[in-house]
């Protein structure tokens, strides 16, 4: 993916207040990040609000990007994911948990940049997750993509809170062993 360097460059220029770089960054990454927001929030309007916050955060924090050691897409995806999870948790707190909305189908034509991003290789984590019990990999996925807490996971798998934490931690270590191979 030749775009990684460009994205890195756009973020560096955003840190210097370059608006053209911000526009270029938006056009290169907004569809991928919106996909992530939409996946977490399952609601177009909320996902757009989240995406707005995401890009405001990117602009404001671009100068801190180098410090954290993340690759550019990971940094952006992490911001999008965390922002969306925060919103999702706020929504759950307001509505009471357990309300599932019907998934919206993605729509809209994709630009070449978006397609290039989508075509990025699947990470090793997908392979390693398959080595865990289905319950355990499911829990990791739910925590990351649906922001489920230990409380929610304990209720879902009908086990005490401490138990769910113990087995999830054990499986995270197992996962790391596979990822480090």
């Amino acid at each position: 993916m030749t775009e990684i360097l460009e994205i890195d460059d756009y973020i560096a220029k955003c840190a210097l207040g370059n608006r053209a770089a911000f526009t270029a960054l938006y056009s290169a990454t907004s569809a991928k990040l919106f996909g992530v927001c939409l996946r977490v929030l399952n609601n177009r309007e909320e996902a757009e609000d989240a995406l707005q916050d995401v890009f405001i955060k990117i602009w404001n924090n671009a100068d801190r990007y180098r410090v954290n050691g993340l690759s550019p897409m990971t940094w952006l995806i992490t911001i999008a994911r965390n922002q969306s999870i925060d919103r999702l948790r706020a929504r759950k707190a307001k509505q009471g948990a357990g309300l599932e909305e019907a998934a919206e189908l993605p729509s809209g034509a994709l630009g070449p940049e978006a397609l290039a991003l989508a075509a990025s290789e699947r990470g090793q984590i997908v392979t390693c997750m398959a080595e865990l019990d289905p319950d355990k990999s499911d829990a990791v996925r739910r925590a990351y993509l649906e922001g489920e807490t230990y409380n929610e996971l304990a209720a879902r798998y009908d086990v005490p809170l401490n138990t769910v934490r113990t087995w999830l931690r054990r499986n995270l270590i197992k996962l790391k062993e596979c990822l480090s191979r």
Partner: protein
Amino acid sequence: MTDDIETHDEMALAAEYALGLLSPEEAAAFESVLAVDPALRDLYADWAEDFADLTDDIAPVDPHPALEARIHAAIFGQPAPKPKPSLIARLGFFGPALAGVAAALAVLFGLNQFGVLNDDSPTFVAEIAAEDDSFVVLASFDPDAGTLDMNRTVGGPREGRALEVWLIAGENPPVSLGVWPKGQAEATLAIASDIARLMDGGVLAVSDEPPGGSPAGAPTGDVLGVGKIMLSL
């Protein structure tokens, strides 16, 4: 053995932090260690990379086209709506902007002294935009290749009309750089070397013209966007 347990413990903790499973108190404690412990930062970064891969199969979806303008307004402030300003009026806005550019260049120059930035030949960039961002073209000029690459990110030609690109250097009348290829968002124009010399510090503009471009050798239609050419990193 103790080390192993500690390592495992930190590894799991970093994963829990990356997943957002820690309580607010635990997360705050983790962050305070993260700030001073590079090894823990690496552990966290590794997890963040791995978990981000879980989004690989999430398809990109284009957000509503109006969202970008909304975000720009939220960050840069809402520009006051004005009736189409003349080109000259638009150029007047560059005074304060240029001071900012000069400051940024001073910073860049300082960085370059320490070899932070790579040493590629200079590239010039411009954001050719309408004041309300309803029309935006990102342009990048490579003096070595003599090419002007442009990417139209917002807006386009009017029905049955064409876009023409102009260079305004100093007090000289606009020089046509070419007509935008029909139906394409991206375009590359070859720039003759005598014109290329005028790019640094000039202004790029895009005007609305009849198909095939201005018959007059000067812009005849509305100026859709204007942008100062600046030195890039």
